[in-house]
């Protein structure tokens, strides 16, 4: 699937989730943009490394970074922009497979999928926190530079 097509689809998915989460109307477009950037980075890294955990980290990091920029621009909390963007990365598929296998009493396969889902959501959270810390450090340094002269 071409990246252009993936971009359009992830934009639609993230903007629709913005509506489901009742995001403010003027932030819907940016929600879609954040989701699109995150997914494209995820897709590229996933193709290069073939590891969904690494790719999720990269995608989540990008999402949080772009969401911070949007949040400063619109003066709204970061969560408004990041939530809808993260949804495409969230390991819904593996969580679903894990639960389905547990209910079907195939516990070994379930453990595998469950661990993968846990690792992916952990890496998403790591990506979010890392991006937040880096933007905070950047703002602090910029604030100090502005104070000096």
């Amino acid at each position, binding site marked *: *699937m071409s990246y252009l*097509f*993936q971009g359009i*689809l*992830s934009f*639609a*998915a993230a*903007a*629709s*989730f*913005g*509506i*489901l*989460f*009742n*995001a*403010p109307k003027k*932030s819907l477009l940016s929600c879609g943009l954040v989701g699109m950037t995150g*997914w494209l980075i995820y897709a590229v890294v996933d193709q290069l490394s073939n590891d969904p955990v690494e790719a999720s980290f990269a995608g989540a990091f990008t999402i949080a970074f772009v969401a911070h920029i949007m949040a400063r621009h619109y*003066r*709204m*909390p970061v*969560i*408004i922009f990041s*939530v809808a963007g*993260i*949804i*495409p990365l*969230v*390991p*819904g*598929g593996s*969580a*679903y497979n*894990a*639960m*389905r296998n*547990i*209910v*079907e009493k195939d516990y070994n396969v379930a453990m595998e999928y469950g661990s993968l*889902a846990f690792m992916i*959501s*952990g890496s*998403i*959270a*790591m990506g*979010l*926190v890392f991006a937040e810390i880096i933007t905070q450090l950047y703002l602090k340094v910029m604030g100090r530079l502005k104070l000096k002269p």
Partner: protein
Amino acid sequence: MTMTNSELVVECCLLAGRLMMESGAETYRAEDTMDRMAISQKLTDSQSFVMPTGIIFSGNKTLPTKLVRISSRTTDLEKIASVNAVSRRLVKAEITLEEAYDELKKIENGHRKYPFWIQILAASIASGAFLLLFGNKLEDVPTALVAGGLGYMVANLLEEKTRVKFFAEFFAAIVVSFIATLSVSLGLGLEVDKIIIGSVMPLVPGLLITNAIRDLMAGHFISGVSKGAEAFLTAFAIGAGVALILSF
């Protein structure tokens, strides 16, 4: 500062914190907002303890410590944004405490939501888009559109009626997987599994899982564990609903 005034500050902080937690804000954001509002109203040694199920807030040593219960949690970003805007303006002293309290009350009572049919449409578009993003074929898209929209509709209507989230999600998963299996057996769809994964995406507690781990990392252990439990129960309900249909 009179006694009644500082009591209003406590009420105002509690209301803001409760609204934020009810609409799915991060735990640290709710605590941060409450503390900032308190400090701006000269309650400098306030303590707030926020959990997904309740908030304990103490203004200072002499004021009574207050507790509010949080019984329902959804994701409502508009509410978070409006509460945040009110607290910002209060901290900047653009509005008085009474005005802030009135505005928070207004946010609590009446507040804009997207019409229900737009939400259903969004859910089905999201399901279709996810189906393709997860690498499935175009032939399955119509089924996913129908299943995703109907599943979301059932989940929402049942949750409104029964007030039990897990029951609603269980039933919605049954509806989604029933539509998927039906369409595959009629020859309209190709892969049951992928249709179901795409169409349950609007129900899957992805945000809860991520928020739970994030809270754990930030040291909010009670919030993290309870959000994780909620996510686990929701995922279990969906898995059970799907398995019930697939086992026939």
